[in-house]
């Protein structure tokens, strides 16, 4: 016994650094990839960056014939469709997560969780085809029957085409739901049982206990929502098939619009002209920068939420037990 232990330690002596080194290399790959993406995007968009400067971000024209390029309609379309998708998806996803984690009868839990995750495994081209052949006609019926008084507002103006911002936001919402729901459910499951028991011990109703659990896991749930947002920002194929691909800045949910990922996918293969190609790569650069900024902001949000955790209104187990 006394001899066996040092022997084991000696073996751990080389295994530890090896393992540490191995994982460090893998982790470094992440950094290298992100930096590599940035370098390539910068290098291949130089022509366009030099020619248009910051006006690239605020120009509405996208004219490959005249060689005039601006990213504003695509930035607008990407952010607008993603925010709309988030507004539609988050309540549903949280509902699914709470039901699965807190309320679902045992026999239903596994099948339902499995089906939710299955939604995430459907290829986006399938969502796109479903969008164009099933959803867009349905949206068109909705648009045709929108009351005239609403049609006069900026939000619902334009001819009823079916394809457009609303159809894109709906497809995106369906695609985002499984991601947000699955992660949020895991977060809720990670809330310690003591939390709930403490709440019940204090006479809380089920509703109050669930609110407490959601509040306890709010940092992670915010992360789950942001994961959905990132998914929506980068989605390409399904969106391009239903959004109408018309680069315009419009508030209207019925108007065909365009996104950054969609224009790259649509036009990259046929772009033979150098400036055109550089402008498309710069769209990728803009998308990269916006993604980094949004991630930074969400990290900040999560960090701030984490800091305010110990307030008394948050019943940590200690507080609950002490009470």
């Amino acid at each position: 016994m006394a001899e066996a232990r040092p022997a084991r330690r000696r073996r751990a002596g080389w295994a530890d650094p090896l393992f540490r080194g191995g994982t460090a290399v893998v982790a470094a790959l992440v950094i290298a990839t992100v930096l590599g993406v940035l370098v390539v995007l910068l290098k291949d968009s130089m022509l366009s960056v030099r020619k248009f400067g910051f006006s690239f971000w605020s120009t509405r024209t996208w004219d490959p014939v005249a060689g005039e390029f601006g990213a504003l309609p695509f930035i607008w379309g990407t952010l607008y469709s993603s925010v709309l998708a988030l507004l539609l998806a988050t309540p549903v996803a949280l509902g699914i997560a709470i039901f699965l984690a807190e309320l679902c009868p045992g026999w239903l839990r596994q099948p339902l969780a499995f089906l939710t995750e299955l939604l995430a495994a459907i290829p986006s081209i399938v969502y796109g085809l479903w969008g164009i052949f099933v959803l867009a006609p349905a949206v068109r019926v909705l648009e045709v029957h929108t009351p005239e008084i609403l049609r006069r507002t900026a939000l619902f103006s334009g001819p009823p085409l079916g394809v457009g911002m609303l159809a894109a936001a709906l497809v995106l919402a369906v695609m985002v739901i499984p991601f947000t729901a699955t992660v949020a459910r895991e977060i809720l499951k990670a809330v310690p049982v003591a939390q709930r028991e403490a709440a019940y011990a204090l006479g809380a109703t089920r509703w109050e206990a669930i609110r407490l659990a959601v509040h306890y896991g709010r940092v992670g749930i915010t992360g789950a929502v942001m994961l959905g947002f990132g998914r929506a920002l980068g989605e390409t194929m399904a969106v391009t098939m239903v959004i109408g691909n018309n680069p315009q800045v419009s508030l209207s949910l019925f108007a065909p619009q365009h996104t950054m990922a969609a224009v790259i996918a649509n036009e990259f293969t046929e772009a033979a002209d150098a400036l055109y190609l550089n402008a498309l790569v710069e769209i990728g650069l803009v998308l990269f920068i916006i993604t980094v900024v949004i991630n930074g902001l969400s990290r900040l949000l999560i960090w701030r939420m984490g800091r305010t955790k110990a307030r008394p209104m948050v019943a940590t187990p200690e507080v609950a037990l002490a009470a």
Partner: protein
Amino acid sequence: MTPVKVRALGALIAAALLFGCGGSGEPPAAGQSSPALPGQGGAPSLGGDAGQINGAGATFPNPIYSKWFSEYSKSHPDVRINYQPIGSGGGIRQLTNQTVFFGASDGPMTDEQLKTAPGPILHLPTVLGGVVPVYNVPGLSADLKFSGPLLADIYLGKVKKWNDAAIAKENPGVKLPATDIAVAHRSDGSGTTYIFVDYLSKVSPEFKDKVGVATSVNWPVGVGGKGNEGVAGVVKQTPGAIGYVELIYALQNNIAYGAVKNKAGSYLKASLDSVTAAAAASSASMPADFRVSITDAEGKDAYPIASYTWILLYQNPPDKEKSRRMVEFMRWAITDGQAFTKELGYAPLPGAVVKLEQDALGKIQVQ
């Protein structure tokens, strides 16, 4: 313990978010290697292993090219040709960077593009395609007829309703509804768009001025559908819609399409024969480099929205053995190979053009 776990999960998600989205903005790295001049022996071998000839370019002719390569390799087992349908623009880029031996394009290379290439490039027409107007107007008593200027005005957003006088003029006796016209076009850069706007620009000075000719243009009105199926989908789902698709796509999917008035004034519904007729009509005035647009062609049987698709070859490539094999293949493709065109929905080359091409193939250096 658990708060830490929850927080760590949040961090993990944020990292996944950053990593996952960064990837979507990454473009396929275009080969930026410094191009070596052909003939100087700089490029060791143009792509892949010794025997294989690599090419890339237009998606439109991919079915017939694949058929040709497989048929040809049956009689010539030593010739292996590999074709990647990555789009005309990509094909031109890869050919210019010499990452492939041959390129393929639905639109001819511009003078500027030819200048950036490291050596002279030949355009060789292989087959022909046409573009047809498709529409969805419920309750029509007959198929619709269009004229070029009318199509241009519809795509400029000037003709807005189906009962517009300009449409009624081309379709006497047809009862037209007062429905709004919903314009659909391709959202992806495409040879189909190139042919269509090339035609509209020829027949309408205003269209040429406001929109112009390219594989992607700045459309004044309408929604963009991705691919032929995207445009056909929008047209099918939207009463009052008009779009344009490749003739092959319309034929294979049994989509009804309209007739178009040609330069001689006859209304033609596109067919493989009327597309070949357009090429034959213009073969007398074929320029030596084959970079020709045959939209709005002369002749009463010529369908006006038609075009060649080209294979692009260096006139003096460094690998002479591959060059010899490729030229032999091309001679086969423009003669015996033409027999496979119609079953796949392509219009064959007119005889006069085949003759001109055989002379041009003689210019390519094979030793």
